[in-house]
């Protein structure tokens, strides 16, 4: 299994600002993903973080709003840009090999 850490664990931000969330894995993994979980909802995939190239976004998510970096096999960042209260959510990083994914502890974001 992979041990995944995320920071910050939580933040309260003002409308119009941006926040970058970091995800660190304790071993090299082939796949890293970012999910969002809005209050009372299930997890929704935002994008696949591709090492050394642009992320692959799901329908409804765009790079300008959620820029993602993955400079190596163990680290990725997700930025939530120009935030609005609708972006208040838990953001989760997941990582793994083949068909098994493990999740980080999540970042609870509140936008005022």
């Amino acid at each position, binding site marked *: 299994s992979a041990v995944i850490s995320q920071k910050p664990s939580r933040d309260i931000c003002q409308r119009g600002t941006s926040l970058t969330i970091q995800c660190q894995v304790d071993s090299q993994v082939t796949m890293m993903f970012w999910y969002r979980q809005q209050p009372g909802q*299930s*997890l929704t995939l935002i*994008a696949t973080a591709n090492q050394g190239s642009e992320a692959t*976004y*799901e329908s409804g998510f765009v790079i300008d709003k959620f820029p993602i970096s993955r400079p190596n096999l163990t680290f990725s960042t997700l930025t939530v840009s120009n935030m609005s209260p609708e972006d208040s959510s838990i953001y989760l990083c997941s990582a793994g090999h083949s*068909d098994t994914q493990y999740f980080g502890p*999540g970042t*609870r974001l509140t936008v005022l």
Partner: protein
Amino acid sequence: EDKVVQSPLSLVVHEGDTVTLNCSYEVTNFRSLLWYKQEKKAPTFLFMLTSSGIEKKSGRLSSILDKKELFSILNITATQTGDSAIYLCGSYSGGGADGLTFGKGTHLIIQP
């Protein structure tokens, strides 16, 4: 569009009861189905199922996949209050961005 449907959405039982949680899926190029337990923020991995009819077991939890009927069940026997959580089912397909498509989850409450 890939779809995962879980039922029931919520369930309240008494300690010691046995529960069965259901998950049906319609995904492109199905590869595997995963079950997670979510108590606070991060889902924790329970099972990965790829083959029909082979039961996976971990303590009081077990799960099985039926690829013909496109569903899976998660059984919990002799439930304890610590089993109270949201149980998420996710399907991994070979199409799209290769992340998991999740159902809405089953909110399980075990009463003492």
